[in-house]
């Protein structure tokens, strides 16, 4: 009787409870899907925005390297000659019917100011060209590039679009004549920053990041490894070791921008290292990654079984010998994996670099540890702030490059971990 009553109650509620169970499960699935879907949307928009930046529109111009322009006084000054005039003349030659001053200026503005630089390179390489006519491929202005890539809608009211109606017509004609081509955007990888999107590249930022990471790894890996060895193998449970432990755990969670404040106050204002230098950035990032590396290294050392140590002790090795001859070689791959992960975190870090002046507009590619420089993520930040449409594309491209590097580093770490993972 009692059992039957219970059964009745349970069975009456069963359908409702199973419905709830299904609902709960659905919520769980949806929650998991949120993260995954975001990742999908994110990569699709990124690839959609950024892929086109790896190709660059160029214009085939028949340039007459006339002596009147290159050497107006008879003696050619090839460094500072008026190459822009050559570009203008070449464009005007294609459209001889354009005579109006404003129209001619609009026509000339189809080519990038980089076109003149390109001609200078060509002439400096082969001075024989002076006086001859040669077909040269030059970069177009960013707006033209955007239009050719279909990012500027020709249907939009002419007032609201950066290219006028006649400019669109000229581009059409140039395209019909086969003068417009799209090639791989080498400028993106060989140029420093620029105000002109079509000339801007990430080489300066990449080199800046590289110099910083060199400083960071040379400092943080030895220091982190040494600290981990001390804490795992030598430190007795005393106040000092406890203090260090608590410190490391807390430093791992201090906002990165606070490390930037430290860098500004100590390295720049107190020690006097120049602002914007990769040296300061590397120092700050070294302090920032130190906790990561210490924690990973300690885990690697802990994973070495005590039997190894005991065997070495039994053979009469001193404590130092046990650690450096036996434990460390076994723990080293794990420690290096931690170092790579720390470096990938350092590569993506932006906020502390803003504090120490690495956010300046720097055109030159840095060639040393104290040259003013910027870093790849900071370059992304700077370009994301630029209003030109063409920079949005390049920002996405720079992000793709950054994520590519991070992926490479993490894959290396994963493969390394897989290869050295051993079951004791």
């Amino acid at each position, binding site marked *: 009787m009692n059992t039957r009553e219970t059964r009745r109650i349970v069975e009456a509620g069963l359908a409702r409870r199973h419905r709830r169970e299904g609902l709960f499960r659905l919520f769980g699935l949806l929650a998991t899907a949120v993260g*995954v879907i975001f990742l999908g949307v994110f990569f699709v928009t990124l690839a959609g925005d950024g892929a086109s930046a790896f190709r660059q529109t160029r214009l085939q111009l028949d340039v007459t390297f006339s002596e009147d322009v290159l050497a107006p006084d008879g003696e050619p000054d090839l460094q500072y000659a008026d190459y822009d005039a050559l570009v203008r003349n070449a464009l005007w030659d294609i459209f001889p019917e354009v005579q109006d001053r404003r129209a001619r200026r609009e026509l000339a503005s189809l080519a990038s100011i980089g076109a003149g630089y390109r001609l200078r390179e060509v002439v400096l390489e082969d001075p024989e060209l002076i006086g001859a006519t040669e077909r040269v491929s030059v970069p177009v202005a960013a707006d033209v590039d955007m239009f050719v890539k279909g990012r500027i809608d020709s249907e939009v009211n002419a007032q609201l679009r950066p290219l006028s109606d006649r400019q669109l017509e000229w581009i059409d004609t140039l395209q019909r004549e086969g003068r417009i081509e799209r090639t791989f955007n080498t400028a993106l990888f060989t140029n420093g920053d620029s105000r002109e999107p079509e000339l801007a590249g990430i080489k300066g930022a990449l080199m800046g990041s590289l110099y910083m990471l060199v400083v960071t790894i040379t400092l943080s890996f030895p220091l982190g490894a040494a600290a981990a060895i001390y804490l795992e193998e030598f430190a007795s449970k005393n106040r000092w070791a406890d203090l260090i432990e608590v410190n490391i755990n807390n430093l791992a969670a201090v906002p990165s921008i606070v490390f930037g404040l430290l860098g500004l106050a100590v390295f720049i204002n107190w020690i006097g290292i120049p602002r914007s230098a990769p040296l300061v950035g590397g120092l700050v990032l070294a302090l920032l990654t130190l906790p990561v590396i210490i924690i990973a290294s300690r885990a690697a050392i802990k994973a070495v079984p005590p039997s190894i140590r005991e065997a070495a002790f039994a053979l009469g090795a001193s404590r130092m010998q046990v650690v450096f001859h036996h434990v460390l070689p076994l723990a080293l791959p794990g420690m290096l994996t931690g170092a790579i992960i720390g470096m990938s975190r350092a590569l993506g870090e932006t906020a502390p670099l803003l504090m120490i002046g690495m956010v300046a507009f720097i055109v030159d590619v840095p060639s040393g540890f104290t040259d003013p420089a910027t870093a790849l993520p900071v370059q992304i930040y700077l370009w*994301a702030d630029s209003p030109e449409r063409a920079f949005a594309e390049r920002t996405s491209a720079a992000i793709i490059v950054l994520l590519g590097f991070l992926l490479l580093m993490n894959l290396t770490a994963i493969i390394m971990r897989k290869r050295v993972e051993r079951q004791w």
Partner: protein
Amino acid sequence: MEPATLVLIVVAMAIGAFQLGRGRALATVGGPGGMRRLHSLPGYYGYYVALWALLPALVLILMWIVVEPRVIAALVVSGLPEAQRGLTPGELDLLLNNIRNLAAGDAVSGNVDAALRYAAGDLKRLSASSHRLLTAASLALAALGAIVAWRRIAPDMRARNQVEKVVLALLIAASSIAVLTTIGIVLSVLFEAIRFFREVPLTEFLFGLNWSPQTAIREDQVGSSGSFGAVPLFTGTLLITGIAMFVSVPVGLMTAIFLAEYASQRVRALAKPLLEILAGIPTVVYGFFAALTMAPAIRRAGEALGLDVASESALAAGVVMGIMIIPLVSSLSDDAINAVPRALRDGALALGSTRSETMVRVILPAALPGIVGGILLAVSRAIGETMIVVMAAGLAANLTANPLEAVTTVTVQIVTLLVGDQEFDSAKTLAAFALGLVLFVVTLALNILGLQVVRRYREQYE
């Protein structure tokens, strides 16, 4: 000689010293055959001599690099004409900079007179002789150290113990870098913050409702009184953090539950690495996404609903930040759920409860302290997050709780105050350090609290 080359030479000398020490140790016992009579392995005698050659010279070089510029600057200043020695420190700095540029052959601002040129020559002479002195002194010290150590070598000298003592000292020094960093952070932020609070009272900073840090450069400038009431920043930070938590806590927690309880092995093997990718994306990339994709989307959606959304709404930054924190919340919740003893779960299931009932009524209450600790860590992460809010949240310090309006945060203001030209005696620049102090203290407190809760909870079941 440049310090870098000097260090290389000293290192080369140390390598030579190693060979000498090792050779002498063997020689004292009559070749490798007598090795058993040595206290330590021969290599340790080598290391002993090498350390004596290396360490004193390196310490000297390091100290020289730190002290040299100050000493030379003082000497150059004392050689300047009477009139220029009375300048204020700032002007003197400028003058010294000019002298340095002149000596290096760079462009010089202002006119170059005879006194300046004389000082530049002075500087060149001084630094040249300083370099010569350093080279001679450090090389002599390295040689002296090596010779002293070399002469001490005897079969019963405890070389290994000595070397190990030095190595242990180096290990301890490396591990105390973490403590030094914390001290460095506290001191650097604290000193500047104290200077700030001398100009702006602490109560105004903590309780003032108006934030406009533009201070007047000239006396007669209009509209830049500079008020430093940080309450709008705190509320802005809390608003964005709140939105981020509103997104990340339910989603992260449900993700952890789903992956722990319902997902098949294959789904788990796929979803976990994907979520880890989410955690590995740099924050500047999230910021870009928030500013250029999320904010316009929210604005369009708001317009469709007839709402007025600011282009830099707190919502866009908060939602993207929430997505960024999902992996953190889910992994910490996962830890907490997994730490609940299996017996509790099996008991509940054996009594006939469904899996969701087991989860909600048994496991979650048991795991609650761990989850709360994890959420505290996530909050601290959200408060300190910089790039997303710098790129997607505004600069206007609005005191509002409306997520559709633009607000600014503590981190955004630190960045805006410190990026660009700065002078270190204006309240505007110092305010950034005061904000940094608040940020550091708050995140530190949250972390300590969170770690404590997590740890105590873990011990409960272990």
